[in-house]
């Protein structure tokens, strides 16, 4: 299934690598990403472009590993804006990232349910 939010092929690959620890990986990603969103909000409040850039970069890496291409793309735009110190672009981007993460995390939780009880 071609999905902009979550790439099933990537998830299958992760499942194969992680075996029993697959659910734990997904949970870790969800929790870590929630923390990162908090970090990003704080950095925006403090107008700290450097922290914004680092956190966005790191978030982008995780997203690409977890097969969330749309979210990874938004993080890349955020990282880019922070590098250019165009903080005025950040609030809108952050909003889109939060919305996209909500979708991804719902989908991942569904995946967790399937994996545990399916």
């Amino acid at each position: 299934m071609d999905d902009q939010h979550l790439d099933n092929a990537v998830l299958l690959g992760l499942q194969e690598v992680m075996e029993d620890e697959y659910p734990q990986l997904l949970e870790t990603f969800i929790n870590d990403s929630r923390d990162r969103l908090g970090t990003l909000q704080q950095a925006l409040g403090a107008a700290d472009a450097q922290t914004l850039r680092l956190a966005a970069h790191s978030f982008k890496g995780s997203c690409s590993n977890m097969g969330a291409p749309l979210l990874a793309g938004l993080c890349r735009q955020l990282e880019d804006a922070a590098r250019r110190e165009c903080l005025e672009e950040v609030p809108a981007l952050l909003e889109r990232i939060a919305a996209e993460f909500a979708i991804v995390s719902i989908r991942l939780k569904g995946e967790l349910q399937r994996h545990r009880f399916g």
Partner: protein
Amino acid sequence: MASDRLVVLIAEDSPADRMLLSTIVAREGHRVLTAANGLEAVALFEQERPQLVLMDALMPVMDGFEAARRIKQMAGEALVPVIFLTSLTESEALVRCLEAGGDDFLAKPYNRVILVAKIKAMERLRRLQATVLEQRDLIARHNEHLLSEQRVAKAVFDKVAHSGCLDAPNIRYLQSPHALFNGDLLLAAYNPSGDMYVLLGDFTGHGLPAAIGAMPLAEVFYGMAAKGHSMPEILREMNAKLKRILPVGVFCCATLASVSFQRRTLKVWNGGLPDGYLLRADGSREPLVSRHLPLGVLDAEDFDERCEVFPMAPGDRLFLLSDGVLEAENADHQLFGEQRLLAVFDANRQPQRLFDEILTAVERFRGRAQDDLSMIEVGMMDVGMLSSAPVPFVDTGQQGPLDWSASFEFRAESLRSFNPLPFLLQLLLEVRGLRGQGGALYSVLAELYSNALEHGVMELDSSLKRDAAGFSRYYRERGERLACLEHGFVRFHLQVRGDQQGGRLELGVEDSGKGFDVARVLAEQERLDGFCGRGLSLVRALSKRCAWERGGTLARAEFHW
């Protein structure tokens, strides 16, 4: 395989990525250490010394660049591969990874197959480096071992080589401290009558094989020179010995020279070395050309020990050099060569500066110094200025025989090939009272013997030796006549008597020749100081009483103690 199991440090600030990487690496059978930032990574590295590091570039607290630098520093010479984990795409950032000591990159998202392949590739590199270091250390240990063996060998050899007289006041020489292991050999010794023997040798090859032949060669040289053997005998023995012990293809290019201060002669045999030179006080020079194959090449029956003899006046110098000078090569592969050497000779004004001038010329030619050159220079001096070495003898502490006489007759065939002097000297040195005058005894024996043989038996005219041309003619004829000698004899009569206080040796040397006008010749010799005039007056100076009887065919000399 257990040996494939590595300890891998993963430094990554994102927990999900860290978990993913750890699992991939652990599934490959490696032990995983994890760190969430650069500082943790450095601390873990110090504690656990992992063999491979996967390092995120951008991390809080301490970034991957700094952590990689510190880890590389701690690792020292050992290769600890650092693979940077990055989604960085700008080339500038990739350059920073390499500059920090990174060995490879892995881009996000991680691909398991590529990661595993990279770990394997890095492991091969790591082992290669470890092997190189091991072998380097092994080679260093071997080299140290070799050098210490060479030091021991050189110390042993120096004991033998330095029993000679290279430190005599008329000798100047230059030799590299590594000469022995370059195959270069430089020896000098007195014979019992104070003649000086000099050998410059150059063994083929380098290292221990080149050095190994030096020891027996030096033993033969010193042993035979001290016992009064002639140059041809020493050459024959050296050649035979080297031929016997050296493998095929190893031999010794050599020049052997003897300088007689009493006769003022130079005798030279050159087998395979560059031309030596007799540098005359007047600035002219006589090349001493190689006319023979090196020592250790020919069998005894093919070996040619014939020497050339030159008159040598005070102020004349014998100069010998190894091929290192002529074969010094510059960057354009040109050789220094003979012409450049001769130019240095021509330009030389102060004899004592000659070595330095040659070295400087070679250095200028090559653009850098050369440290494997051997050179020696031997000057002609007055007899009194040199001290000859004591004649070697194993003293048993006993008096030796004190009341005996013996006569020996050596006929033509023996005279052609046998030198009776060392034999007679050793016999006479059995008498303890004579040991202190071994040198004088040998000189007198040698002088009387050569007079008896050359002027008596072979009827050579000593007046030929008045000038340089006649001189070489004299020695040429001496060789020719001796080679086809059919008749004649030389007799030695020895009479030893002892008493409570001391004793005396009465020596008679008799020949089959026609004799000579004793009174006239002696009177003539008083006036002469040329090439031929030193013999008889020398005998008179060294022995207690001396006289000629039977029309000059019997010479008598006495030694007292």
